[in-house]
């Protein structure tokens, strides 16, 4: 395995990695987490040790990112670096050790999400890819792609739009993830639409550049599940 820009990580040897790094990307509301937890179980039944990693789950930096989000003054540049710190910690203490122990690491989103979010806010792709230059190149990226039209009803039906959330404005779908900090429209809905449109465009570009396996996530759950499993089975060497 290699890192994107061949940037080495101090005191860590990646030459003896035996596990597989599988990334599932896709926007909010696409059903990523449900698929991942089901696939994890399926792989474990097949006898593979699996660990799942996701954003802001670093034991010491995840909390910092959460705290920083409450500071209204933080800008895009600082946010980008906060996400980078969270990722670096998970790379060093979660992803690499698991891969060295022969685990399958299922990444619930990867550097592409962070890069896309910062790109949507005007930062240079080239710079962002250099920052993440120490990230391991995954064995495969499955991109659960959905059109905006298919995504809207799913989001409108989710927790983010119920009345309780509306009352507790602080719990409203994360400002950063929904692009509310960009003030792209007069209300939450307009802003969400503009933002998701941008994100989907950026992801389509990244998909080409980084050879993502595109999965049509606009289809029903069983179909998407089958396609993902087929792809993973081939990669890991499961037969039946």
């Amino acid at each position, binding site marked *: 395995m290699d890192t994107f820009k061949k940037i080495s990580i101090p005191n860590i040897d990646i030459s003896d990695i035996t596990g597989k790094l599988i990334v599932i990307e896709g926007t909010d509301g696409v059903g990523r987490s449900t698929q991942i937890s089901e696939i994890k179980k399926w792989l474990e039944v097949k006898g593979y040790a699996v660990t799942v990693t996701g954003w802001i789950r670093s*034991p010491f930096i995840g909390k910092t990112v959460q705290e920083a989000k409450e500071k209204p003054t933080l800008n895009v540049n*600082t946010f980008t670096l906060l996400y980078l*710190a969270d990722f670096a910690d998970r790379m060093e203490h979660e992803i690499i050790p698991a891969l060295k122990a022969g685990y399958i690491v299922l990444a619930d989103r990867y550097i592409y999400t962070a890069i896309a979010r910062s790109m949507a806010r005007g930062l240079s792709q080239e710079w962002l890819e250099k920052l993440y*230059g120490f990230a391991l190149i995954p064995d495969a990226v499955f991109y659960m792609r959905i059109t905006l039209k298919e995504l809207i009803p799913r989001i409108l039906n989710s927790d983010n739009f119920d009345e309780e959330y509306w009352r507790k404005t602080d719990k409203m779908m994360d400002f950063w993830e929904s692009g509310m900090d960009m003030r792209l429209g007069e209300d939450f809905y307009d802003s969400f639409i503009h933002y998701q449109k941008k994100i989907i465009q950026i992801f389509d570009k990244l998909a080409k550049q980084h050879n993502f396996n595109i999965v049509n996530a606009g289809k029903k759950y069983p179909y998407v599940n089958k396609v993902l499993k087929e792809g993973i089975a081939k990669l890991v060497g499961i037969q039946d």
Partner: protein
Amino acid sequence: MADATQGIKIAWRQKMRKYEVPHNYPGKLIIVEGIDGSGKSTQLKLLQEWLKNQGYHVFFTEWNSSDLVNATIKRGKKKNLLTPITFSILHAIDFSDRLYHLIFPPLKAGMIVLADRYIYTAFARDSVRGVDREWVRDLYGFALKPDIAFYFKVTTDVSIKRILTGRQNLKYYEAGMDMRFSDDPVESFKIFQGKILEEYEKIANEFNLTIIDATKNINSQQEIVRNTVKKILENYNPEPIIK
């Protein structure tokens, strides 16, 4: 004139390492670098007094960690999770926050900003801790190029003498004890600062820092500092950006 400014602006935006081209803010950014005990902070204070005395609007900032990052570093150390890369990024986070809130505004207002340590401190320290040199230089790609960057060059023998005058012990990180070069703080300090010094030498050359012989006495150093600053103040006409 308008075209020239536009040219700088475009070049600045396109650069991935923005500190490679001059900024076009009306203010001036003057920074000092050097190992602990090089006397750079004393020199900056003297410069500040001199500038203020002449009626300039001066803003001072130093390379210190914010509460947010300090708390994170503390958590990381406690859990033994802090590594050269995360340590490096956490400092970049602080620098980014400081740049946007404490350095850009006074520069836009046409003030003179004095910074005690700048990105070159990170370049030197992170490289010694084994982080990829080019990567650190990219990490700080959003930084501004200083109008003057002084590097106070000193030997570790001189700096250690200065630090230990007035206090008994060297601090853990100051002595680079985390690098485990030696169990003896003074010995460790010498090795660690010696390595930082080597990095500074490369950096001074790479980024054309203004080298000051910091073994000389205080006022002769200050004289050189003031003469250098005088030159950039000749065409300094602080006009705040209003749009």
